[in-house]
Each structure stands twice: as C-alpha cells, then as structure tokens.
C-alpha cells in the first residue's frame, strides 16, 4: 500500500467515525429517534435536535409569494396623500438625508415627488388602506398583517433578493427554505420539503437564479426543487415505455445495494443523499400526479383563483399548486412572480401585474381558510425592496416611474401565528423614512423561524470554522405581529 492510499484509507476511517459518532449522540433525543430515515448533520453541527420543532410551532408550513422586481409600496399598501398634494415638487433634502441612490437615478438633476395614480380606500374592520389595484386582497384584509416598515440593506435586485432569501447579500449561504428543511425536516417524505414555483408577469422583469433556493453549505437534500412551469411540473416522472413500476422498484433496490456498498467504502454522505433522492423520486411518481392534476378542479376553485389557475406556469396556477403542495406537507413553497420592476411605465405595468396576482393571492388565503389550514400555514407576500417617492425620468400626464428604495416598503403576512387585521409600523408622510417600528430583513427571518418553532439563535451549522445562522449575528423577534 503506497503512502497516498494509506492516507486516503485513514481519512475514510476518520470520516466514518465522525459520522457515526454524530448520529449516536444526536439520537438520544426523541426527535432524532424518529428521523433516522433522514440524513441530518451530526449533532456537532447544530445546537438543536434536528428534524423537529424546538418548541410548539404556530405555523407548520410556509407559502412565500415573492413579488420579484419590487412592487411599489406607494401604489399598494402605504397610502401617502401628501405625495399627491406635492406632486412634481422637489424631494426635500431633509427627508432624503443623503440616502445612496442607484446608478439609474443618481445622476438625475431633480427628484420630483410623485403621487400614486391609483386611489386608496380603507377596508375591513381593521380599516387598513389598500389601493384599488388589489380589490381582492382588500376583501381579505382582516386576515392580513401588513408590515409597512420593512427595510433592507441592498439597493439592487440581485443582492436584495439574495439577502431576503439567504440572510446575506453575497449568495453563498443556504436559503430560508433550506434552513427550514434542515431544522424541521420533511412532513411528507414523498415530496421535497422545499419546492420552488416560477412565473413571469407582463411588467418589466428581473431574473431569478438558482442561488436563491440553494442549500448553500447544508446537505444537498435541503435544496429547493424547482417545478417546471410547463404541463408537467416535474419532468421525467413517468417510467420509460416498457418498464413497469415493479421492474423500476427492482432496479432501484439493486442500485441502492451498490450505493450502500460504495458508502461503506468511501463514507461520503452525498452517497446516502443520493439513495434518499432515488427513493423519493420513486414515491413522487405517485405523489405528484395526485397534486398536479388540474382537470378536476371545481368551478368554485376556478373562480377563487381566477381562470388562469388552469394555465400551467401562471401565478394563479402556482398559487393553486402551492396550496396543494402545502396541504400535502411541503414545508416551504417558494413562489417567484417576476415583472414588478417599474422604473418607467409604472401605471400599465402595475395594472398588468395586479391583474396577475390580486385574485390568486387573495384566493389562496380564502382557500386555506375554508379548509381549516390557514392557522397552520404562514403566507408571506412581498418583494425585495420598495420604490422611491420621487419619479425616475420624466413625469407626464399618464406615466411615471419609480427607482429602487430600500429604506421602507410594505409586505404582508397571514395565517399561522400572525395577528390578523393589523397594520404594523409607520412611515413618514413622504413614504421615505420609517417613523415607528422598523423591521429589518433579519428581524423578519427571526420571526418566521420563531413561528415555525425554532429559535433563530440556535439553529446553526458549523462551516469553515464557525457556526452560521440564517440571521447570522442579528435579528430580533417582531413581537407586535405575533398572535
């Protein structure tokens, strides 16, 4: 045996020992006992028993309706009549306070304030202001908690999106859904615990990238699984012609044997992950068709989400699919709807985008509620930042645009553990700065984890010599929105 090979064998033994030791200690807790069929990091990685909520969760599952491109808060939920009064006047320097601007408006000579072209009205018992763009969301406003004071650190799409999804702007960390899968495990082992659904609106679009649903340094088992937006949401699920389910089973059993042998030789945990993935795909062959068959939807469901819920790849179809996936125990369903980047042509873009999302978003809330699922499902709606109160480019009678604004914007949350019918936080009259109750992205993450039964300070993973968290070294619970 030459020296190199000796070194290799020694390493294998060491790795084996560590893996086994980890599992041994971790399995002392009841939680881990139940999840031995899953691959979790060894106990040294985390402060928590993995695969089970740390304390009684208020929500079991999340559906995140991400509005990609950043919808304007000033045309949706943050009503600022002063902007209409001061339409065309210059943004006072005392309000802007030297805020950094994007390259798109930094060289603009003037910053004329621009009021919303859409009217606002108060709705529901909570009396929350909602713009006329969202008549359906307005009808469920008493189920929503609108946060008007979320703020972010990034001013461009990619870093802002990455920050929202992974807690860091650079994009090398696990995403929210991966952390959930890592911390809570899967409810339904026949489906991925983290699914991603994409749709594109007709407004000015911005891309989404796979780094937004990455597992980062966590086990690849926790990566988000993107469903295709075509007629077959999960490709290659059908058996090849001439092969039946039994022979597929036999083939997989043989393959698993080979893989198990290979694992015993090399000890690479990725081999076990692969065995699990094959097994899950096999069960997905039954589980997925049950979910994605839209042909049997009742008339009432179609009216609830809008007619486009039957067209695969639309936002409405994704909302309906999200409800079904969530109902079937998928921990984290992440939707992205593109097209909210309204630098110019705001009026038309917003109208088209609202037409896509309003009915389906509200429909999802109503649908979860009527099935008794809203109290255990957390629904989140919002973009990566807000938009400026001043106009980008020229204001004319019919059109205007808004640039990126990180200092305040509106999102809403509803369902599991969220106080319904609440408007949280206040912005100034210009809709530029936060006056009361700021919520940072880290605070948002901390709160979401809390609702899922995890203390954000304790869900950690050791990587490159230190422990990492979704909230890294920040994050305070937003108690005011927790029921």
């Amino acid at each position: 045996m030459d020296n190199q090979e000796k070194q290799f064998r020694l390493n294998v033994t060491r790795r084996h020992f560590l893996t086994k030791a980890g599992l041994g200690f971790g399995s002392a807790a009841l939680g881990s006992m139940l999840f031995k069929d899953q691959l979790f990091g060894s106990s040294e990685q985390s402060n928590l028993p993995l695969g089970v909520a740390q304390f009684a969760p208020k929500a079991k599952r999340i559906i995140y309706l991400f509005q990609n491109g950043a919808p304007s808060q000033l045309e949706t939920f943050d009503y600022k009549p002063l902007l209409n009064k001061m339409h065309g006047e210059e943004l006072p320097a005392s309000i802007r306070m030297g805020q950094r601007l994007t390259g798109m408006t930094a060289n603009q000579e003037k910053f004329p304030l621009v009021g919303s072209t859409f009217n606002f009205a108060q709705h529901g018992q909570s009396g929350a202001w909602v713009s006329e763009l969202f008549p359906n969301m307005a009808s469920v406003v008493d189920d929503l908690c609108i946060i008007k004071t979320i703020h972010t650190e990034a001013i461009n799409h990619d870093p802002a999106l990455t920050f929202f999804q992974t807690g860091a702007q650079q994009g090398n960390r696990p995403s929210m859904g991966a952390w959930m899968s890592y911390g809570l495990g899967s409810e339904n082992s026949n489906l991925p615990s983290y699914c991603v659904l994409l749709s594109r609106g007709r407004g000015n679009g911005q891309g989404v990238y796979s780094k937004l649903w990455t597992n980062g340094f966590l086990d690849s088992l926790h990566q988000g699984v993107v469903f295709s937006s075509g007629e077959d949401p999960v490709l290659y699920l059908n058996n090849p012609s001439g092969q039946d389910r039994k022979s597929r089973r036999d083939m997989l059993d043989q393959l698993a044997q080979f893989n198990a042998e290979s694992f015993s030789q090399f000890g690479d945990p990725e081999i076990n992950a692969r065995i699990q993935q094959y097994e899950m795909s096999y069960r997905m062959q039954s589980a997925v068709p049950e979910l994605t068959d839209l042909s049997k939807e009742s008339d009432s469901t179609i009216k609830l989400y809008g007619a486009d819920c039957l067209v695969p790849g639309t936002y409405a179809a994704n909302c309906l699919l999200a409800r079904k996936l969530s109902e079937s125990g998928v921990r984290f369903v992440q939707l992205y709807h593109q097209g909210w980047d309204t630098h110019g042509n705001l009026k038309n873009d917003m109208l088209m985008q609202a037409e896509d999302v309003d009915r389906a978003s509200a429909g999802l809330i109503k649908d979860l509620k009527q099935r008794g699922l809203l109290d255990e499902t957390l629904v989140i709606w919002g973009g990566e930042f807000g938009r400026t109160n001043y106009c980008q480019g020229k204001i004319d009678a019919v059109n205007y645009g808004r640039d990126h604004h990180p200092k305040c914007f509106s999102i809403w949350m509803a369902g599991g553990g969220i106080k319904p019918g609440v408007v949280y936080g206040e912005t100034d009259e210009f809709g530029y700065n936060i006056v009361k109750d700021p919520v940072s992205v880290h605070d948002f993450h901390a709160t979401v984890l809390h609702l899922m039964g995890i203390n954000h300070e304790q869900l950690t993973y050791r990587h490159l010599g230190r422990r990492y968290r979704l909230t890294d070294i920040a994050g305070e619970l937003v108690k005011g929105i927790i029921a």
Partner: protein
Amino acid sequence: MSKHLSIISNSLIVLQVFMIFLCFVDLSALPPLIAYIGKLHPLLLHLPITLLLLALPLYLIQNKYPENDVLKNIFSFYLSYTALAATLAALGGLLLASGEEYNANTLFWHKWMGVTTALIAHGLMYLQQARYNKVIWNTALFSGIVTMAIGSHFGGSLTHGEDFLSLDLQQEEEVSFPPLSNKTTVYDAAIHPVLQSKCITCHNSQKKKGGLDLSSFETGFKGGKTGAAWVSGDPDKSILVERMILNMDDKKHMPPKGKAQLSEQEIMLFTEWIKAGGDQKATVQSIPDSILLKNLVMSVRAASSTEKKAKTYDFKAADAKTIQSLNNPFRRILPLANNSPALSVKFYLKEQFSANALKECQSIREQVIEINLSGMPADDNIIPILNEFKNLEKLNLNGTAITGKNLSALKANKKLVQLSVAGTQVDSKSLASLSSLPSLKQVYLWNTKVGPEEAAKLNTSYASIKWDIGFIPDKAERLKLTAPYPVNRDKTILEPGEKIALKHPLPGVKIKYTLDGTAPDSVNGIFYSTPITPEKVTRVISMSVADGWLNSGTTDYTFFAKGIAPDSATLLTLPEPKYRKIGAAGLIDLSKGETGNLGLYWLGFRENQMKAGFHFSNAPMIKEVMLSIAQNTQSYVFPPTMIIIKGGSNSTDAKIIGTFKPTLPDKHLPNATLPFSIAVKEGNYKYIEIEAKNIQKLPKWHNGKGEKAWVFVDEVFFY
C-alpha cells in the same frame, strides 16, 4: 500544637475581633474597593456550610478511635479550617450588606446567625483541642449546625426572595390581569400587573434594590435612593420612565440587560399614565376611548393575553420505538415539538391508505392530538376508530369519502377543537350532533352538502362554534378568461407538415383567431376547430370566449417553418459580452428566444455590426433568407437599417445576392419579434454570409438620441 495550627489560630482571633467590630459600625461609607471584597461572600459561604456539616461524621470516626493521634490531629486541622472559612464568609457578608439594599429584618437575623456560626466554629476548635466533656462538645456542634442552617435560610431568602421555597406553582405563571369592572383603576388594570411581571422580583418589600419597592402604589410613589419613582403629570422628570428608555448598554437601564424588557407599548403606557397624573384613582372607564392612555391599557392587556404560554400535556410520551415502528412514508407521526409528548398523524398517498393504517395507531391513541386524513379514501367506517383518540384536538377529513353517517360517534372526542370536512358529502343534520362537544370551536364546511342557509342556521343555533362554509362564488360576477395558447408553447419552429394546435384549459371555451395580424374581436376572426395549416411564417393572434365569462385578452404567436439546415455557423463579429452566450450555433439551433427576455437565447449587437457566416456542405438551392429580429424601442432595440446577404462557395468568393432595408419605427412601438424575409438570387450555395447594420445614431424623438441602437437576433432560416 504545630506552628501551622497556631498561625491559623492567631489569625482567627484577629479576624474574629475585626468581625465583631464590623457588626457595630456603620459601613455605608466604605471605599469601593473594600466594599467589592464583599462580593466574595456568595463564593465563600458554601465552604463553612459543607465543612461544618461534615464535621459530624468526622467526629464520630475520631470518637471511635480516641487513642489515634493521627486522626485527632487531622480533625484539629479540619476544625481550624472550618472556623477560618466561617469567619471569612461572615466578614464578606458584613461588607456585602453595606453595599446593597435588603430587607432589614431578614438581614438582621442572617448577620447575627452568620457571626454566631463563625464564633461557634472557632469555639469547637478549642473544645476539641482541650478535650472538654462530651455533653458540652455535642451541644456546641449541634447548635453550630442549627445556627448555620437557619442563618443560611435567611441568606437564601435575601437573594432569592421569601417565597422561593414555597410550593405555589402559580408563581411561575405569567402575571394575570384582573378582570375589568367599572371601578378598576388604570393602576390596577395595567400598571401594577406590568410592574409585577417585569420589576417586582428585584424591587419588592424584601429586596428593595436601590431602595425602591414597587410592590404597592404607596411604596412605589415614595421611590428609592434617587428620589420619587415618578412625578405626577411629568414623565420627563420621572426616574421610572427615564430608566426604561435609557440605552440598553447603560448600566442604569431598567430592567437590567438580560432580564425581560418592557415593550414599547408598555413604556408608552407608563408615560401616558404619569402624564395623566400617575395616581391610583383614575378608573379605566372614566377615560374616553379617544385618549391614547385608554388605548394603551387595552392593548397592553390584549398583548399579554394573546402571548399565551405553550400548552402543556399531562399524558406520558409514547415509546419512541413504537412511534418509529409506525412511521413510514405513507403514515407520518410527528411530535408537536421536541420533548413534547403530543403527536400528530398524517397519511399520504391514496393508494397506500387503508382503515387498518389508522387502526394501527391505537397504541399511541393517548398521545395523538392531531389526525390528518385529507384526500385519503377513508369512509364512514373510520369514524368509530377515530373516537378512541380521546385527546384529539384537530381532525382533518377534507376530501375523504365520509358521508356523515357515523359522525355522531365523534362525540366521544371531548377535546376536539377543530374539525375540517371540506369537500365531503357531510350534511348539516349529521353535524348538528357534534354541537354538544365541549371544546369544539371551528368546523370547516366548504364544498359540502351544507348550503349558506343551513350554515347560517347552525351558526345561530350553536353560536359557540364557528361553522365556516368558505368561499361561495358570486354567480353574477363575470371574470375575464385567460387567452388561449399553443399546445406546444415552446415550439414555434414547425417541422414540414406540422400544424398549429391551440388550446384552452377550461371546458366550454371557444377560441377565435386571425392570421392577418389584426386583433380578433366579436366581429373579426375565425372560430378555431381544427389545427391551423401554417405558411412559411404564420402569425396567429387569438382570444378566448365563453358564456358567463368576459372575453380574454389576445395572445400573439409567430411560427416559422423549419428551413434548410446549415452544417455550421460562424460569428464574424462579436456580440456584446452579456448577449453572446448562445454563440453562432444559437442562430441555427431551432430554438427561438422570447420577446420579453432578451437575456436568454438571443445575440445582441451594438458596438459591432452583426456579421455571421453559414456553411452548407451539399450546396442546397436557396432562394430566401429570414432573420428573426427583436424590437424593444424603449430599451434601444431596433430593427437593422440594412440587411446584406452574400452567397458563394466560401467566404472569399461570396458576392451580394440580396439586400433589404427594413422600415424603422418613428415612435415607441410595442415589444415584438419581427421576421424579416429577404429574397435572394436563387442558386446553390455552400456559403452564405449575413450582415445586419444597427442604427448608429438614434433619431431625435428617442430618449437616447444620438446613441447607437442594438440589434438582437435569435434565429436565422434558409428556404
């Protein structure tokens, strides 16, 4: 007596004299460094406790062998150290007492018993050396231990509070707000409960940190060392508020860092209350609703009541092995949380379900609080199985095959809170039998036999339960249809003989389309019945129409017939770096880009004019060349000013065989993909070169006037 022992003995005498001296002098003005030594008291005090207690067994051993000198000597040393430890602990205690505020009475007893213990320990040392008679010795040892025990108890009461040892479990609970009556004062309704939950552990009648006792209105009003806790009507001058709003890192911030903090709402409550007088008289009822204070009282009370503690269960956890043996991919048993005995059971995959799968869970029936059978083919026969789960709180039967026949058997599930039967054949009669369930709060009835009138009746008859029938579509509301789309949306390049099929997912929808570039409407257009036979380029604009729905918008798809395929393609000029991913091959890969996404599947030219060569080894006959070009005038993407086609057998002998000058937009036009067809001199070519010139100076009307425009190409066809 050894030298060692005599040193200890002498130091003891000095220390004890000093100790007794300290008992009688006022220590309030000690230099801080000396006072700091007092902080060692908690560290030292456990030593004499242990040593003194162990003295008893050691004495018994020594007594058994009275002649053994070694044992005797050891015991002498032992006792001297016990006395030393007791004395040092007492000294520390005396110094510590000077720096902090404690309940004077308890402190008095603790001080004197501590000092006595030290004195007795010292006495024991002499008694043992002098071999006094056993009665005196025994009495001294016993009284030393008893004094020490009682003294320690007083000490514990000082630091942990008087009621630390009492077995009142209520103490652990969150502070409860008294119910509101028309006589409840603001102080009682909210101020006192908040003080109680956040301040009183340190500021009570016993502990009085900083001299402040907040356990009653009077003592609180009197304040502490720095003066009154609040000044009626003036929150700015009130120390109570000041301490709450100080920076967290400030030492004076209250409650101290690490303790439960006051919420912003609670701080505002104190501010407003003090502003309104800070008295004990104002009742909640006397304040008008419009006043902020009233609002704060109510919301602080509400916030606390909703932050309920997690429910605890008094049943035992199930055996982990039992749970593990029941767990499989089709029946998932999960604990509510780590270390919680409560379990939920959920079933997956219809074809794997049988009533037996549920029956097998009876070994954990005590622990199961949630069962989810949604979508499973479970029928009425499962209800009798379900009623054995006595602790069941949440039951989901959505979409199951139950008819409601056995539903009344669920009356045994006394703890049931939520029942979901959406999408089943359940009727209101069978449901009414459940109204006697004491805990039942919500029943979800969407899409069942229960109509709106029956639901209303249930809601009035059994008002403690929320009977929810969910969304009922408004028959009069007409929604907009979605537009139709090609069956194969991604394939807009057609094989010879392939037809264009359109579809709409909703049954009963008719599709109307045009092929001439005009928009279909109620007059214009043809109804779609069979797939459309395409031309070389076919533009299909279509819409959908159905009774009871509003017409859809239109969709616009352009289809291309697959032409003669070149063997290879070469880029003779480079596209811009961000828009060259697909390379030359992308122009002939039979995959079209999307109008709305120029970042993918397109080549974008700006600094260089597009120039590409195409090779055909078998020199086919070519008479037409077609370019698919993007138009997005807002983003500076225009058609080329000129397209030049060269042909020949290779790049050196190729000659111009056709040119084309597209019409350029003179205003902003909708985004589109435009096919430009160029007729070329018919012939057999091995090589064809295409050049497309972009606008070098954008016209005046455009916001980028004077700048270069882009040319975007995604595919090239040869016919």
